[in-house]
Each structure stands twice: as C-alpha cells, then as structure tokens.
C-alpha cells in the first residue's frame, strides 16, 4: 500500500460530513482558545475531553488535533493587535507584529500570519506523512548534550535580538536566566530562591511574565499620557498585504516551515524555540536587519509559520512512538487511551485507518482554519476601533482570567501584575524586554541539559563533542559567538576589517 492509496482512504474517512463537522468544531474551539491570552491548547483540549466520551475515536482525535493546531492560528491575533502574547509561541510575533499595528498595517500582519500558518501547517503534515518514522529516530538521537549544544546556539543568537545597546540586552538576558533559576531544581531536589514560599517552588511561569511585560506593560505606558488614543478607520485596501509584503514574506514562510517542523521534533519548549529561531534566522539573512523590531513583515511571517509547522513536528514523536512532547499532546494521548487506543510505536501499523484519517483531517483542518481566520482579519482589526478607554479595562480583565486559568493560582496573577510593572519601568529605562522573556523560557532547559549531560558522562566534558550532532552544534555556537563579537567590534574600532 503506497502513501497515496493510504492517503486516499484517509480522505474518504476524513471527508465524511460528520468528521468535517468535528474538524470544524475543533478548529473553531482551538482558534478561540488561541485568541484568548493565557488559555492555550492544553486547556482547550482538557476541557473538551469529557465531550468526546460518547464520540467514536476517529472523530474524537480529529477534533482534539484540530484544537491543537488551531490554537496556533489564534495565538498571533492578540500578539499583533495588542502586544499580548496569547501563548509562549507568540511572544516573538509581538516584536514586529505590534509595531506593524502601530503603523496601521495590522490587517496585513494578521493576513500574512494566517497565510503563513496555513503553509507551515500543511507542509508539516506532508512532513509527518512522508517522514514520521525516520524523523522519530532522528529525534531520539537528541540527548542532553545535543540539547545543550542546540540551546547554546539559540542563546548566542539571543544577544542579537535586541535593538538597543548590547550591554543592556546582555543584562536583560542574564536577569531572565536568573529568574529562571527560581524554584525547585529538578536535578537535585533543592529549592532555589524560594524563601519558603510554596508558590515559588515551581518557579516563575513565563506565560504570566510574558503577558505582563509585553501586554500590561504596554497598557500602562499607553495610559500614561492620555486615555484618548487616535484610532483609525481601516479601509479594505489596508486589510490586505500589498505586493511588496507578499513577496517579502515568501522566503521567511518557506524557511519557517522547515525550521519549525524540525524544531517541533524536540521535546519541551519546541514551539517557542521554533518561532524564535525563525525570527533570528530571518534577521540574520535579511539585507536590512535594522528594520526588525520596527514592524518588518518578515518578523511576522517567519515565526508564525514556524510555530504552526512545529505542531506537525511535535506530533511526529507522538504518532511514531507514542511519546508526548508536550502537555497538550499528552492530554490528547489520554483521550485516545480513554477510547481504548494505545499510542505507541505500533500505532501507525495497528491503526492505519485512524492514522491516515488523522493525517487527512489535518490537511482539511488547515484549510478550514485559513478560511476561518482570513475573513476574521477584518473583524479583529475593527476591534481596534473600540475606544481605548473601553478596550483596555476589558483587556486587563481578560489577561487576569487567562492567567488564572493556567493553574488556578492567585500567585500567577501576582506575577502578572508584577511583571507588568517591571515591564513598564524597563520600558521607561529603555531596556529591551524580549531578551529577558526568551532567556526565561530557554534558560532552565539550557542549565538542565548541561548538568544532565555531565551527570550522564560522570563529569566528562567529552560528551559535548562526542556525537556528530552535538559536535556540529557546539561548533556552530562557537562560530556564531566569535562572529557576533567580531561584528560588534567593527564600527567601534573604525578600522577596516
């Protein structure tokens, strides 16, 4: 049975009225939870599990998967319109997306985000279809040493993220890393910087911090001067990207798809890493890197495509091996278990019907999503026309609820407000926020991988260049580091290189 025959059978099942309906429901629900900040696909899936009890398993998995990749479409909306990252993967979208809104290009940004998401999502499904077992093997080769090496590359690249002074960005990165150490140290069971406060024992969550620093900080800044903000009436032409923007986003979208898909294979903070890596790569490749951070379409196209492609990548390990790479997928797995299906390496061969229906439905779902989201661009952009003084209290309330819904913890709300104040102050002092938040996200894994690698090797550093993957990433990190330093020394010295 070749792939196309299988796919054909899959489509037969996926395109039944019933399953299209479930797919639509899942995508709709996913978009909704994606748009609302704080609530992510995890909550969306967990909330709907009871509803799937009476359903047949194919419909159930189609719906739940729809929620998962659907949420990635919605996450960019609040990031672009209000500088509030709907969830971790959309933090990077805030950087240029919100700037585009300020320049009146919100519609274009939302459009390209939806468009890129479709391309990324679809290409990643093709990836799963063709490569699932091979990729699973590749992902398995990623041990702590390789993970550390890869994150080291990301970390070196973090430094070039900021738009301001290098020292100030570094300060933010270090601060972010430090804040990341707060809490229970998973490798020794020791509590760091918790001072006996039990709520701190899991550390300071980055979702409240990101929402606070970006979103609430922005609101506080905006209300400083005046409560009357000019709103513009968008014309239809302004809702769509112009030809130049379309052309400029083609490259980032293609690169983002590949990058995102492979980043999604990694366990843990896959999604964030994918959008972040895409942003960095685009900035490096671009002929005008100074434009990044001021509302550059490539800064939206790449990351948004990447985080959707990452959902595909994340599902590879789950489908091929039955190992969940993140909480949302784990909950999907539970839904399958409740229906009596056991995900594992034999899933594809034992349940070809289910697997191929799922694949086919993912193609369908991506189409449904882009059909849902594109017309909504107009609706969302018109949201901006609501007078600011009405809008911002509502946004504040939604941020609060969204944060609370993560773990029903009042402490998270305190972190949210605190980060908001911090973000406001840092903004006044002209420090970049993105390096801090991103360092907070990748810091703990960076440290953990390093120590895990040493614990595995018994203290020997050789593990870091032992495998070809680890060696190449370490080499890349070293190269990038030297290149960054060399570049930053250039204009200061005034001499020709």
């Amino acid at each position, binding site marked *: 049975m070749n792939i196309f025959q299988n796919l054909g059978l899959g489509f037969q099942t996926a395109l039944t009225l019933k399953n299209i309906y479930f797919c639509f429901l899942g995508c709709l629900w996913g978009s909704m939870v994606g748009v609302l900040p704080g609530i992510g696909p995890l909550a969306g899936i967990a909330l709907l599990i009871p509803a799937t009890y009476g359903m047949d398993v194919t419909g159930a998995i189609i719906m739940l998967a729809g929620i998962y990749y659907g949420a990635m479409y919605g996450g960019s909306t609040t990031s672009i319109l209000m500088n509030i990252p709907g969830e971790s993967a959309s933090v990077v979208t805030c950087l240029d997306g919100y700037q585009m809104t300020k320049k009146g290009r919100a519609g274009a940004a939302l459009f390209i985000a939806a468009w890129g998401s479709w391309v990324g999502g679809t290409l990643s499904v093709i990836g799963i279809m063709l490569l699932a077992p091979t990729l699973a093997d590749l992902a398995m080769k990623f041990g702590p040493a390789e993970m550390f090496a890869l994150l080291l590359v990301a970390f070196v690249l973090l430094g070039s993220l900021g738009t301001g002074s290098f020292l100030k960005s570094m300060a933010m990165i270090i601060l972010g890393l430090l804040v990341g150490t707060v809490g229970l*140290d998973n490798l020794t069971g020791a509590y760091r910087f918790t001072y006996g406060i039990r709520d701190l024992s899991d550390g300071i969550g980055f979702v409240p911090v990101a929402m606070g620093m970006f979103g609430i900080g922005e609101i506080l800044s905006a209300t*400083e001067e005046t409560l009357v903000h000019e709103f513009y009436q968008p014309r239809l032409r302004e809702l769509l990207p112009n030809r130049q923007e379309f052309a400029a986003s083609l490259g980032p979208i293609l690169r983002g798809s590949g990058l995102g898909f492979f980043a999604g294979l990694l366990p843990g903070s896959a999604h964030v890493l994918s959008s972040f890596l895409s942003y960095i790569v685009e900035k490096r490749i671009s002929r005008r890197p100074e434009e990044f951070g001021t509302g550059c379409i490539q800064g939206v196209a790449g990351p948004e495509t990447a985080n959707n492609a990452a959902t595909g990548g994340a599902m590879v390990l789950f489908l091929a091996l039955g190992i969940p790479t993140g909480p949302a997928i784990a909950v999907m797995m539970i839904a399958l278990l409740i229906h009596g299906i056991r995900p594992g390496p034999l899933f594809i061969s034992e349940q070809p019907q289910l697997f191929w229906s799922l694949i086919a439905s993912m193609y369908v779902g991506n189409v449904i999503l882009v059909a849902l989201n594109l017309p909504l661009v107009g609706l969302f952009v018109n949201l901006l026309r609501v007078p600011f003084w009405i809008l911002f209290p509502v946004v504040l309330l939604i941020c609060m609820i969204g944060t609370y819904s993560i773990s029903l913890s009042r402490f998270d709300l305190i972190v949210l407000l605190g980060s908001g104040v911090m973000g406001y102050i840092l903004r006044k002092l002209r420090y970049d926020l993105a390096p801090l938040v991103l360092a907070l996200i990748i810091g703990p894994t960076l440290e953990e991988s390093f120590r895990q690698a*040493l614990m595995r090797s018994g203290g020997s550093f050789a593990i870091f260049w032992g495998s070809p993957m680890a060696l190449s990433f370490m080499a890349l990190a070293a190269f990038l580091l030297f290149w960054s330093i060399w570049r930053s020394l250039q204009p200061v010295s005034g001499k020709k290189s």
Partner: protein
Amino acid sequence: MSKERLSSLLLFLVGILALIQSAQFPMGTLEKPGPGVFPLMLSVLLAVIGVLLLIAEKGQGKLNWLRIIREKGTVWKIIILSAAFIAAFERLGYLASSAAYLFLLFFWVCHSRAGVAVALTAVITLGSWYLFGTILGLQLPTGPRLL
C-alpha cells in the same frame, strides 16, 4: 542621580544579592553539578554588567521623585485597582470582584459617566462569566456561599 545610573546601580545590587544567596547553595562536583553553579555564574556576570553600565551610561537629568508620584496618576490607579482585584478575586468570587474592578476602571480611572460605566460593567462581567465559566468550563471562584 539620573535614571540610567539608578538602573545600573540596581542591576549591580541585584547581582550582589543573588551572589550572596547562590554562594550558599551546594556547588556539587563535576560529576553532579549542584544547584549553585549556574546562579553563581549568572549573579557574578550581572554584577559585572551593572558596574560596566554604571561607567558607560551617565545619563542626564535628575530623577524627580515627587514628579513621578504625582504625574503618573493614571498608572498608579490602574496598579492599585489591579492589586485590589487580585487580593479580592478568590475571596469575593469572580462576579463581584470583576464588576468592582471594571466599574472602578471605567468610572474612576477613565472618568466615564456613571451610567455608562455601570452598563459596560454589567455587560462585560456577565458576558465573560458566561464565556469563561459556562462555554469554556473554567473553574472560577464563586465567592461566599449564600445558602
């Protein structure tokens, strides 16, 4: 002292404080790196950067504390209201606290008319209660049970 210098100084102080704390964590061995290694390194780096920034960025102008407290009225109000909301949220329940929060934001901070504020508050509070509580099925605190 200019605000640039103040911030650099603060960074330096945070670094030193973190340094003191991290030094108390076990450093472990090469085979089993302890929880103290990373924070120690980071706090040293932070303190160093704080010093470097102190030297590099002189900044101008002095910080006028009175001005800060007086001029940023709106910001202060929002922060205080939000803090009150967080404190009351679990105790008074979602409906009561959000209603109070929104109303005060509209009326006190934004100076809207009382009637408009009440109307907006009612719509948004009830609407969001329905959206989050019923449709999304979130567990929102219900406040003191009145029989």
